[in-house]
């Protein structure tokens, strides 16, 4: 039994990954939810996460992974996510994930960010962050000060090194 749902998801490059075994296990991550055709909060959120990516610098992909999961998997296939990632200048270490609606909903429920009444335009604007190895998890608005987000996440990452 795993602590997180170990559902099968796909990255923007089409790779099949298990949410726990391949994505989270032993890692420091940020996790947010979005969809590519979202016109409410996603454009600003993604723009903010681009700044987080910048603030993470060389740590992205090495100490910290950024995970963005679509809540509209029927539209957001790996090729669509790939275009979205490229359009926003996502660097290696920032993964965009899709999967079945059911599995994605299970991940959202697990993270406690599923209170949108089934309306995807009301999906969470929170960013979960944590260190799977130490079991420390917190959440902050994905629109929070990008430098602050980066500091919080890197601090958890440093705990792995110490």
């Amino acid at each position: 039994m795993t602590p997180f749902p170990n559902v099968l998801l796909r990255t923007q490059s089409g790779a099949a990954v298990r949410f726990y075994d391949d994505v989270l296990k032993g890692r420091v991550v940020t996790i947010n939810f979005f969809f590519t055709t979202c016109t409410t909060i996603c454009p600003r959120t993604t723009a903010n996460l681009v700044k987080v990516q910048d603030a993470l610098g060389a740590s992205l992909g090495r100490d910290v992974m950024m995970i963005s999961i679509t809540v509209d998997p029927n539209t957001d296939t790996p090729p669509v996510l790939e275009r979205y990632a490229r359009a926003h200048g996502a660097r290696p270490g920032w993964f965009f994930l899709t999967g079945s609606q059911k599995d994605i909903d299970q991940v959202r429920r697990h993270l406690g960010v599923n209170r949108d009444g089934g309306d995807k335009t009301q999906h969470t604007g929170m960013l979960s962050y944590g260190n799977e190895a130490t079991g420390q998890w917190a959440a902050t608005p994905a629109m929070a000060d990008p430098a602050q987000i980066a500091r919080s996440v890197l601090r958890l990452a440093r705990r792995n090194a110490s």
Partner: protein
Amino acid sequence: MHRPRFSRRDLIKMGLMGTGYIVLGPEGRVARIEADGFDFQSPAIRRPWIQDLPLPAAPLEGPPFADCPPEYARFIDADTQFFQIEAVEREVSFHPDLGTTAIWGYRDMNADPAAASVLGPTFKQRFGPYADALTGKPKCAGGLVVRHHNNLPANHSGFGETRLTVHFHGGHVQAQADGFPEDLVSPPAGFPNKLVIERGTHYDYCYPMLDPGFDTDVAAGVDHVDLGETPSTLWYHDHLLDFTGPNAYRGLAGFFLAFDDPNANLILPHPKSALDAGDETDDRTLQLPSEPFDIPLVLQDKLFARDGSLVFNSFDHDGFIGDRIAVNGAVQPKLRVQRRKYRFRFLNGSNARIYQIFLANGSGVKYPMTQIATEAGLMAEPIRNISSVLVYMAERVEVVIDFTPFPHGTELFFENRLQQTEGREPDGLTSRGPQILKFIVEGDPVEDPSLVPDKLRPFDKITDAEKASAVRRTFEFERSHGAWVINGELAGQLTRPVARARLDRPEIWRLINKSGGWWHPIHIHSEFHRVLSRNGRLPPLDERDGMAKKDTILLRDNESVEIYFKFRDHAGPWVFHCHNMEHEDMAMMARFDVIP
């Protein structure tokens, strides 16, 4: 793994409390629980009422520190007391049926380590300000400095973060001693940027024990209109950004009781008859029941694994709800009482559970209590013959109970009849509820010098002129896309203030809860406030201006309150936030600055 999607509340309604995702570590230890539809039950308490109510000792004074921050210098002199507290992980027992539990606790470094209890030491301090004996001028120094050490373990795993900041809840102190949630990247001029206590380091907190207005009012040549709001039940607890819930849940909390000093050379004497001096035999004072008949009680709900370890769900952002209610760190303790009056100081130190406490016998028959105080200390008058008290997170409610009429051997209980299965809000009152503390009445009636006078600590209401001169602000709390929003702006940005209040200038804030289905106790740092209106009407007596002063105010679904304050003496960055700690950790918090 597939599980039916029922909420905890659904399962309780169906009588189907199941087990949740449980990660079994070595030797069957529950290593971690992180799950949606989180359902978990603590082991049964088979032997209730076998342990005595814990009453943590006061900390012991130690030698002065030569290296206090220079900003504290004006508050430190030969009368200042120095204490050293460390946050450590240690094994305690909440109940013999629950085995031993590793907690993070505050410990008095000047005391025997074996004496440490679940709670931190209970500070008991007297208030100034005093006049200089020679010149008659106000003397700000005195008070205390507490050096907090972070000696939490390296390589911690599990919920919580081993960085600390200690909030003096209800205290009126310099901002740098308030326990700001995070280091400041660009602090205001003259303000330190390093505020968090990293592991292996310490931080000094200076508590001058001065009435609000000691600087600004004296400078302005006015009386201390709020003189005497300070003898009160305060507390200290961790306040780390994003991790206050798990850190406080692990045990980082303690009491701080403040009293008047009837022998002090006070700069502006209180009416002696209104003194809350903690000595029921001193007829110059109010003579409320005093130690050992003055008993602080902190209520904290917990979940325990089979091996006694604490269980916490880091992904329950609605608010953590436990199924065992600890009173001063003990589950279902007992207290033998004499046939006389007692003072009880309730503090809700829970993350998200709200209590409504009744005094009842084993059959549920209720008995009356008298409320005497709120967060800011004594009310103007007692409220007699109440059958229950609502206590929301961080709130303090003090009652006096007279056990004289109960025959020897009578058993009475504090019973919580407010059912709550989710962190969002209580479900409602029930006819019976869990008994959390047992009283055993003993002996014949004893001599009882204590009193509950009809006037306690009268004070003037805010006048219309003061209201008219106030700066008015409105803060609307809302939920948008699963995040907390204040006035349409994302909450939680501590790098810049949402308001700049002038020192000593009256303010009226209208706090509005636009999130239906959620209750939010809002706590504002630095000053107590007066409640002018609730939903446009006169507030209930126990929070109404002229009767009570508060530092935390409840907003039920769609409620609005209007509160008045004047920020005095201490400029600097402060915060206000929801004291549902999971809401606070979800950034339901804002910074405001007080500027000269």
